[in-house]
C-alpha cells in the first residue's frame, strides 16, 4: 500500500493556491467546493507518481525494465480491487469515466450489431452515458430512458417493467454528479440480474466516498474524482458478457483494452485507492464527512431565497445542490470564483445561453429554478472553517446580486 497515512494527516498539506484573479483572497486560501468536478491529488498520490517516474519500462516488455513497470501496475490493480472488493483480474484500466462508460455501452452495441436489441438507462445520467446511449440508438437500437422521482431516483419497479427479452444492457449510475442523490443500486442491479441482463453502474461519483455494493456486471470509476490524477479510470468486469474492445492493439488488460498503459496514472489511481480504502474503514472519517456536508447544507439553506435540490436522505453528504431564487447560477459561480470560491452551476454553461440541467428538469424542477442551481461539493480535505467561509461569501454574493437586481422589474 502506498498510503498508510490517514486522511487527517494529509489535510492541510494540500491547500489549494488561489491565483491572483481570485481577488481579495490570499494565496493558499482558495475555497475549493467543486470536488465533484475534480479533486486535488493527495500528497501520497503525488509521491507515488513522482517515484514511479524512475521506472520507465514498457509493462509489456519481457526484460527487466518491463518487469519493473508491470510490477507497478500489478500493485495498483490489487489496490483498486481492494477498494472495489473485486478480483484484481476484473479490473480493466482505461483513460477515465467517459471512456469506461462509453466502452461498455458502445461495446455492447457493437457486439449486438447483427441482432440489434434494446438498452435501458435513466434520465439523470452523466453525458458520457447519455451520449454513448444516443450513439447506440443511432446504430438502430431501441432505448428506454427511465424517469426519476423528485429526489432523482429510479424506481426499481419501473426498471423491471422496462426490461425486455432483447434488452442488452442496463446502465444506471450510483451517485448523481449534480445532486449527490444515490440510486437504489442493489435493487436495480438485482432486477437486471434476474432478467439475465448485464448491468453497468457509473460509480464515478461514489468511488472513494462510499463502499459500493457488489455489482454483477460492469462498474466504472475515475481516479480524479477521489484524489487521483485525471485521465485514468477503471471499469470492472464481473460478468460473462463479452466486453467488445474499442481500443485495439496489444493484449494489455487481459486483452480487454489495448495500448501501452498509463503507468503513472495507474500508479496514482492505485495510491488514491489505498487512501480511499483507509478512509472508508475509518469510522471517524465517516462521521466527519457527514458533519462537514451537513454543515454546508444547513449553511447554504439559510441564505435568503435558497432552496436545496439535493435530497435530504440517500444522498452523498459531500454534494449540496442549491437554487437561489431569481438569480442565475452562472453569474453566482463567476462572482464566487472571483472571490476565491470554486463552485459550479448545475448546468454546463459556457455560453451566454445557459441551459437548465437535464437532471434537475427530470426531477420536476422548473427551468427557472434549475437555472439558479449552484453545486457545492466537498472532499475529505474540506474543513469546517472552509465551509463557514464559503457559506458566508455565498450569502454576501447572493445579497449583493439581489441588490443589483432588486426593483429593475418595476423600473
Amino acid at each position, binding site marked *: 500500500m502506498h498510503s498508510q497515512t490517514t486522511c487527517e494527516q494529509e489535510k492541510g498539506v494540500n491547500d489549494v493556491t488561489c491565483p491572483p*484573479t481570485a481577488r481579495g483572497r490570499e494565496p493558499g486560501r482558495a475555497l475549493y467546493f467543486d470536488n465533484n468536478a475534480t479533486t486535488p491529488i493527495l500528497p501520497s498520490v503525488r509521491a507515488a507518481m513522482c517515484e514511479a517516474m524512475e521506472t520507465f519500462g514498457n509493462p509489456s516488455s519481457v526484460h527487466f525494465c518491463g518487469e519493473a513497470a508491470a510490477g507497478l501496475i500489478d500493485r495498483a490493480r490489487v489496490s483498486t480491487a481492494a477498494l472495489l472488493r473485486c478480483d484484481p483480474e476484473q479490473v480493466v484500466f482505461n483513460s477515465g469515466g467517459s471512456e469506461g462508460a462509453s466502452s461498455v455501452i458502445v461495446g455492447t452495441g457493437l457486439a449486438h450489431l447483427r441482432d440489434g436489441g434494446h438498452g435501458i438507462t435513466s434520465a439523470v445520467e452523466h453525458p458520457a452515458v447519455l451520449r454513448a446511449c444516443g450513439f447506440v440508438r443511432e446504430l438502430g437500437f431501441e432505448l428506454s430512458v427511465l424517469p426519476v422521482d423528485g429526489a432523482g431516483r429510479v424506481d426499481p419497479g419501473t426498471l423491471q417493467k422496462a426490461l425486455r427479452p432483447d434488452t442488452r444492457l442496463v446502465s444506471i449510475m450510483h451517485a448523481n454528479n449534480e445532486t449527490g442523490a444515490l440510486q437504489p443500486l442493489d435493487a436495480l442491479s438485482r432486477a437486471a440480474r434476474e432478467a439475465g441482463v448485464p448491468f453497468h453502474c457509473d460509480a464515478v461519483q461514489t468511488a472513494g466516498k462510499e463502499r459500493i455494493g457488489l455489482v454483477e456486471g460492469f462498474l466504472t470509476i475515475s481516479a480524479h474524482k477521489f484524489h487521483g490524477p485525471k485521465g485514468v479510470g477503471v471499469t470492472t468486469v464481473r460478468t460473462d458478457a463479452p466486453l467488445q474492445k474499442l481500443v485495439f492493439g496489444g493484449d494489455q488488460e487481459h486483452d480487454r483494452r489495448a495500448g501501452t498503459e498509463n503507468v503513472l496514472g495507474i500508479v496514482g489511481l492505485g495510491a488514491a485507492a489505498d487512501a480511499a480504502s483507509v478512509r472508508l474503514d475509518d469510522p471517524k472519517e465517516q462521521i466527519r464527512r457527514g458533519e462537514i456536508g451537513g454543515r454546508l447544507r444547513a449553511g447554504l439553506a439559510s441564505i435568503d431565497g435558497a432552496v436545496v435540490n439535493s435530497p435530504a436522505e440517500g444522498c452523498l453528504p459531500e454534494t449540496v445542490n442549491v437554487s437561489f431564487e431569481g438569480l*442565475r447560477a*452562472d*453569474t453566482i459561480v463567476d462572482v464566487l470564483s*472571483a472571490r476565491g470560491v470554486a463552485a459550479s452551476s448545475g448546468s454546463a454553461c459556457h455560453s*451566454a445561453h445557459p441551459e437548465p440541467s437535464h437532471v434537475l428538469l427530470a426531477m420536476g424542477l422548473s427551468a427557472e429554478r434549475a437555472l439558479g442551481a449552484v453545486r457545492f461539493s466537498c472532499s475529505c480535505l474540506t474543513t469546517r472553517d472552509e465551509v463557514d467561509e464559503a457559506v458566508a461569501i455565498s450569502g454576501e454574493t447572493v445579497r449583493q446580486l439581489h*441588490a*443589483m437586481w432588486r426593483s*429593475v422589474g418595476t423600473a
Partner: protein
Amino acid sequence: MARFSDEIVEHFTHPKNVGELPEPDADASVVDPVCGGQVHLTVRMGDGRICEARFVAYGCAAALGTASIVAEWVVGMGPEDLASLDEAAVTQRVGGLAPGQSHCARLAMEVLHALADDLRTGKGSE
C-alpha cells in the same frame, strides 16, 4: 486570456453605484432578449452633464460588471458624448471582453444611446 478583465472582476465583485436615483433627470432601460440581460440606468444632471448615476442590472457576471463600469463612466458626460460611444469604446473601457461576451458591449451601448435619447428629447424620468 482570462474570462474577465481585472476591471470587470473589480466591478462585479464590488459593484459601485447600485440602485435607482429617486426622481432622476433621465433614465434608460434595455433588455437583451437573447442573453436575458437587463440594465436600468438613472442619472441626475448638472450643467448639462451627468453628475450622478445609478444602475441595477440582471444577467451574466460580465454584464453586471459592465453595467457598474458604465454607471461610473458616464459621470461627466453629456448627451452627445453618450451618443458617440459604440461597442468598441465600451469593450475598450471595460478592459476587453472574452468571446461570447460581446453582447455585454451591445447591451451597454444600447443603454447609453437610450439615455442620450432620453436626455435629448428632454423627456426625463417618468
